[in-house]
């Protein structure tokens, strides 16, 4: 069961990473325009040129 001493902190750490990512998306207004985002993904603006 010693493996738990690693696994529990690891799982909590991963969870915290997820939480941080969520916090970042919230802070950078990523939930403000769900309709626009679903439309933007279909644009072919970036198809020919990868993001510069």
């Amino acid at each position, binding site marked *: *069961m010693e493996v*738990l001493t690693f696994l*529990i902190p690891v*799982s*909590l750490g991963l*969870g*915290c990473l*997820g*939480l941080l990512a*969520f*916090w970042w998306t*919230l802070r950078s207004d990523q*939930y*403000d*325009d*769900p*309709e*626009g985002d679903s*439309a*933007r993904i*279909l*644009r*072919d*603006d*970036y198809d*020919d*040129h990868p993001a*510069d």
Partner: protein
Amino acid sequence: MSVTDAHMRMSACPGCDATSLATSRAAGKAQAGDQEIALSLPSMHCAACISTVERGLLDIDGVSSVRVNLTRKRAVVHARNDVSDDMLTEALARLGYDAQPLDQATLSADQSDNAARDILMRLGVSGFAMMNVMLLSVAIWSGASDATRDLFHWISAAIALPTIIFAAKPFYVNAWKALRVARLNMDVPITLAIFLAAGMSLFEVAHSGEHAYFDAALSLCFFLLAGRYLDQRTRTIARSAATELAALEAPTALLLRDGKPDTVALDTLAVGDTVLVRPGARMPIDGEIVDGDSELDRAFLTGESDPIAVRLGDQVRAGEINLTGPLHVRVTAVGKDTFLHALADLIAIAENSKSKYNSLADRAAAIYAPAVHLLAFAAFLMWMYLTGGDLRFSLNIAVATLIITCPCALGLAVPAVSTVASGALFRKGLLVKHATALERLAEVTAVVFDKTGTLTIGQPRLLHPDAIAPSDMAVAAALARSSAHPRSKAIAQAAAEMDLPEVTLTDVKEQAGHGISGQWNGQTVALGRADWVGGKSDGTQLRVGDQTPIALEFEDTLRTGVAELLELLKDRGLPITLLSGDTADNVKHFAAPLGLTDWRAGILPDDKATILKQMTADGDKVLMVGDGLNDTAAMALAHVSIAPASALDATRVAADMVLVAPDVSQIADGLRIAKSARRRILENFGIAACYNAIAVPIAFFGFATPLAAAIAMSSSSIIVSLNALRTR
């Protein structure tokens, strides 16, 4: 009719045709010294629109970044200070989009966005904590014991306790507010359950107990926050759209300094200043005319569709529309002192009477909250008696009862349904502004309409143009084309659809407030007010040379979908009443072809309110649809009210819902959706009751485990959410 209406009518998307897409970065970095301009783009609706608008605006010199928000149909532009709103709107007009600059101050005054975001953050944190604790709980449920169990319990406690303090804040703050004034609301049992569960579990863990309810406390928090978030978001979207309508009307006036007009903010005006009001503009203030003749559209005040002539020395009121000539107006009252604002009191009354309405959720909570407390207390007493005073065991049972009965389903039942319903209405162009408006709409038993501006768009249409001799009609059209008066426009529009001889007029002059005159084949021709062209009676007349003047008759243009709406309402068996401030002739003319028999004309604002009061006293639940200030008092008294987007700001504020779609028949759809939503809410209450009927005895008699609580809670929440999706 406002610009918004015109926008909405344009449903085709010009950007959809755009096929060749050049590559450009849509969003750049804003630089220092930039200004931020917000634009409303109601006709935008697809992915190509986003590209077209963003690229089109970026091409303008000085624009550093553009971000389109399709959900809100808005664009936010960062640009150098020398870029004006007009440059942006003109560029967009060339691309085929109607754009309106929005007043940033009005927009940023709306803080509800932050509230939704705050709840979303708490929802995220409780979701994270719930999943991690659940993971540890699964290990315990599958048989972890002794030291391992205690360790897992301690870790759960370390995650759960801070999370609860942070995430459950909306609940305990609300519960405290209610308790302080000695009332019970839904948040009291929620708070009690969460904190008792957490506290009791902590005690159990400290004593190496078998059961801990941390996961239950957290999932309770999570599901209920989800309900709160849905609730908040629904209202934020509707409210932000309503705020946008207000922000369309930038509060400025043309102040005359040494005879030169200067655009200033409305709140800098003082009594005694002189302002210029151009034709087509609304009076920004109350005042007295010191120069100029014109006609005013007072429909919003009186409901009368015919323009009223004004001249030097006449009083004007904020909100009236100047039709023909430029007016110089000396300010007699500004801002809060204007007649327009005196009506704010009425609105306050409206808000008050509406907040007295007991929503279904309130009524459910009123039964539910005391019942849960009594049950938990009874369980505690019973087990104290049965076990001969085992406090720890009895408390555990009481906590389990509290948790398992806690209104996960109930807290989601209403918000989930109203989110789905409001979303459906939003897509149809009906903004639900008031929290209980949907429920009230479902109960409506009678409908009252205003005429001018509500069922009609307040724009005249020429009647029987065929009855006028083509040569006369041609002269009338030639005269009318030189004027911006609504009736002139109506004549020109009617003429455009006819085959008329060419006429050439010379010396065309418009005399503001009276009419237009000119020379044709050596004769004087005039189009205007009857007394001015030399005719009898009143109305608009045309005189050619020495002939007897020809009377031109007008009627108000119907809004789209009026006939369908009335038909649908009749099918539902709802009695329809038309209350108008217009003349009996005009109203009769309007009502007869639509099959409306119950109409009253020449109604004063006070009369409307009296009639509404009478109807309410007779037991009718009235839906009032109106747009003018003369309707505001009646709308405040009605059970539920709807205003079109073209209504005055004050009226829109008073209304429970705002119709932004040009098609009024959406109101009938609104009624149908409201009824369906009410049915779903009641069904969800039924589901919650069934669930409690099974779960409560289990908890009461001590068979509940944390696992059972977790399963019961999640499954009932999922079932009510799925049922909510059936609303349509």
